[in-house]
């Protein structure tokens, strides 16, 4: 078995799996790079839809996108499969492991015993790497954790067949070439530019008022009304939900904004372009403001600052953040034009 397995820890699970799988194929990019090339940054607040009795919103792109797009833009061939029958999903995974692949698996966290029970909601968009099998146990690298771990075959299968939103249906994915694959500097730059452009499109030009930078204002408008509409307690719970989506393990803090700032910092180095560095600072600022908003939101759900003026303040912050991010993406779209 693979005793020399080098576990990689990242802030976000899917980024981590991408970094891990690419590394196995011989391509060394770090988490912020994977996140940026995969156009990971996003914002959406889906109207009328409630998840766990709270508003449905996300600070990142949809699950699976970062992996697919990173591979596509870097020109790496991958395969992704779902299975209608659990037995087939298990057999297929075993076959890949025997062939020496590291395999990414989508799982639900409700049944993952190595996580603290407080985190085990029915959340199905979690990802981990399976890198081997010993007897009846799978060797697992969950990149959000400090150390690799193990899961019994039954438990892993259960997690791969979790139900609810984003049910994984045994979803697994891996990089076809066993490597070492080389990615030229030119190709990497091209991938970065493509990733940025797609992210600019997602955040600035997505139609509708509830996604991208305008989505942040949409939430701001909602927050302003929540106190009257829902009462302090329920409004507090909604805000608590936003804080968790934004700051919990997996986000790198500040609703993934620090990750994106780190990506632009690396990009600035890659292109030797200080303009990119100053946009990176803007995203760092946005991340700080998200964090400030989290502190304010905590003021509400802890029952300390529950007046309408505090709701207005939070809404105001969302507006400011939206403007900063909108400006930053506009500048970014201008800057990358010269690298076409």
């Amino acid at each position, binding site marked *: 078995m693979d005793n020399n397995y080098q576990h990689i820890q990242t802030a976000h699970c899917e980024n981590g799996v991408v970094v891990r799988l690419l590394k196995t194929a011989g391509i060394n990019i770090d988490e912020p790079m994977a996140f940026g090339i995969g156009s990971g940054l996003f914002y959406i607040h889906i109207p009328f839809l409630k998840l766990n009795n709270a508003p449905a919103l996300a600070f990142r792109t949809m699950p699976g996108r970062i992996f697919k797009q990173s591979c596509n833009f870097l020109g790496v061939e991958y395969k992704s499969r779902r299975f209608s029958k659990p037995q087939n999903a298990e057999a297929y995974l075993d076959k890949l492991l025997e062939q020496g692949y590291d395999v990414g698996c989508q799982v639900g966290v409700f049944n993952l015993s190595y996580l603290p029970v407080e985190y085990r909601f029915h959340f199905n968009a979690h990802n981990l790497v399976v890198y081997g099998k010993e007897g009846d146990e799978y060797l697992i690298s969950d990149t959000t954790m400090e150390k690799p771990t193990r899961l019994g075959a039954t438990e892993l299968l259960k997690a791969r067949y979790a139900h609810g939103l984003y049910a994984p249906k045994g979803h697994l994915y891996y990089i076809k070439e066993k490597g070492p694959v080389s990615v030229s500097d030119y190709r990497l730059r091209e991938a970065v530019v493509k990733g940025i452009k797609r992210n600019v499109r997602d955040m600035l030009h997505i139609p509708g008022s509830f996604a991208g930078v305008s989505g942040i204002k949409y939430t701001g408008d909602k927050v302003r009304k929540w106190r009257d509409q829902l009462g302090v307690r329920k409004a507090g719970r909604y805000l608590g939900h936003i804080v*968790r989506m934004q700051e919990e393990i997996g986000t790198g803090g500040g609703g993934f904004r620090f990750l994106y700032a780190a990506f632009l910092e690396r990009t600035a180095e890659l292109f030797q372009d200080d303009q990119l560095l100053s946009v990176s600072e803007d995203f760092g600022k946005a991340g700080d403001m998200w964090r400030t908003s989290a502190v304010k939101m905590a003021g509400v*759900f802890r029952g300390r600052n529950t007046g309408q003026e505090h709701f207005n303040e939070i809404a105001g912050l969302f507006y400011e953040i939206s403007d900063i991010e909108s400006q930053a993406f506009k500048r970014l779209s201008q800057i990358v034009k010269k690298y076409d």
Partner: protein
Amino acid sequence: MEELPQDQSALVGYTRELYYGKDKDGKFRTGLSTGWEVKTSALEVAWDEVKESLMEAEELVRSGKRSPIYYLMVKKLMNISILSGYTGMNRLRVWWHLRPAVYRRLRDKVLARYAEAFDMSVEEIRNLKL
């Protein structure tokens, strides 16, 4: 590197989480954190809500307004749609089984599917005391 929060959280004893922050030269570095009290209390709020709905569910079952399946569903943090996924029965049917009168007539074969979804035995469901 700038100071990361090292507060008490449910992660302690399991893992620390990775954060991105700036070092003294203004460059991004990664660091580990045990948790941040702001999000710890956000998680507590979520669990308070769960506990509350569990108490409500208990009351509904005791007063004969809902079947024990309803209580177990809430206990396992599920809703009808998730439970429908785990049992392989459609949502309308699951909803129907949340009525005490319907539940009492349920055959063991059907109940076994709930037992599996809730990770318990049919007897345990039948003998559930609230």
